[in-house]
């Protein structure tokens, strides 16, 4: 899966949780889920579950803790996706 496709899908997943439209318009790898998108921290677990469903992967607690930005999420998804 291309990086671009991962980011496009990721943007769609986070959309309902976002409380800062400005952050969403500037959606890029450096975008921070809590600070830039103003996602309620309790909703991060919902984002994780939606990512799991969308990409058919499982994200363990350790990986989740390192997932602060869109780029972090992309890297974790790439790592978990079956190769080839």
């Amino acid at each position: 899966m291309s990086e671009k496709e991962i980011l496009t899908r990721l943007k769609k997943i986070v959309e309902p949780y976002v409380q800062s439209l400005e952050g969403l318009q500037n959606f890029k790898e450096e975008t921070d889920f809590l600070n830039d998108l103003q996602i309620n921290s309790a909703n991060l677990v919902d984002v994780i579950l939606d990512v799991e469903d969308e990409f058919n992967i499982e994200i363990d607690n350790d990986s989740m803790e390192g997932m602060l930005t869109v780029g972090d999420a992309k890297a974790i998804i790439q790592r978990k996706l079956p190769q080839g």
Partner: protein
Amino acid sequence: MGKRVVITGMGVAAPNGVGLENFNSSLKAMKSGIQFFPELEKLKFSCQIGGKPEISEEILNRYFTPLQLRGLKSSGIIYGVISGTEAWEDAGLKISKEESPDWDTGIIFGTGILGVDKFREAIHLIDEGKTRRLGSTSVVQTMASGISAYLGGILGCGNQVTTNSSACTTGTEALLMGFERIQTGKAKRMLVGSCGDHGPYVWGGFDAMRILPNKFNKEPENASKPMSREAAGFVPGSGAGALVLEDLEVALERGAKIYAEVLGGDINSGGQRGEGSMTAANNEAVVRCIQKAIKNSGITADKIDAVNGHLTATTKDAVEIMNWTEALKLKGGSFPFINSLKGMTGHCLSASGSIESVASVLQISNNFIFGNLNCEEIHPEISDLISHKCIPTTMLEKKINILAKASFGFGDVNAVAIFKRYKA
């Protein structure tokens, strides 16, 4: 002498009408909200009928954000938020987005059990070893105070925000608790009410107790028969009712419309002594509760024009009437008009007290007494006590000055509230 307390807004999600206007029309038309549920038949319930508010997508989208709707499975929260927000808007109040909450406004919104369908989903996931899949709202949708928490956040209330629970007394108790908080000057405005989930997991326990009617699955609208000779048990219901109570001075200052005044009331328990038990009322406690409510309100029994009873449509209805005649010292034709909403909605359990309080106040402000549905033949033990003229079976155009509303619940608990037409 404490502050005077008035009702300035109301909202409702009842089996026979969602929204104040629909509900008012249903009351006047004596419309039943009882329906047959194929799901209950499949689950081999004896009683396969019940009362459930019809909530359209449009209404859901009006009262909830898309984010709130994600995974929302607590029907009690859905009904409670709809009725609570409607009451708030009906009172002419705005939803403020300011940083600070409204410190003078609080919420007491009760329930019996909350979010059973959400809880069932969680139980299945947990048993499959998938606890991590519960999502973020499993707790807030199933905690008892979930309903006051949702409303508190939506409306931005900064006074006491809590949930009470006292079985079928819950709604009337919430109203009286909010009333006291304003009367004693601790709050200027309280949103009070109660809600209850629908469905087999709420109603099953009552079915197992064999206190629900089982011969009306083919004719649901005829099943709930308060005060009737044919009363065969209560029909389970669900929904929510909400009222905005306000310090009279504050209401007048902002030019709010006033539906009625809450004069007072009383809450007590029979201690499960005497005739009282976990499921039956101690008659002495009921009589005391009615009499103290009248005394607290500074009126006398003969001033009561109408009674909205608890009257669930079991054989205990006659006992309730006996307690009213004993408490009011009024019998035969001198007894006030009396009605029960449960003929139309069934028994909405924890939501009943608030839905019925809304119905009671509508009768005062709109000058009518709704008729008792399915009560063509009055139970002989009741007609021995009061005249059939006191039990209207059609809607009466009538100006009510004072109305007494009672609710009784499992655990031998009682609540009686007295409402009065507002006069400056």
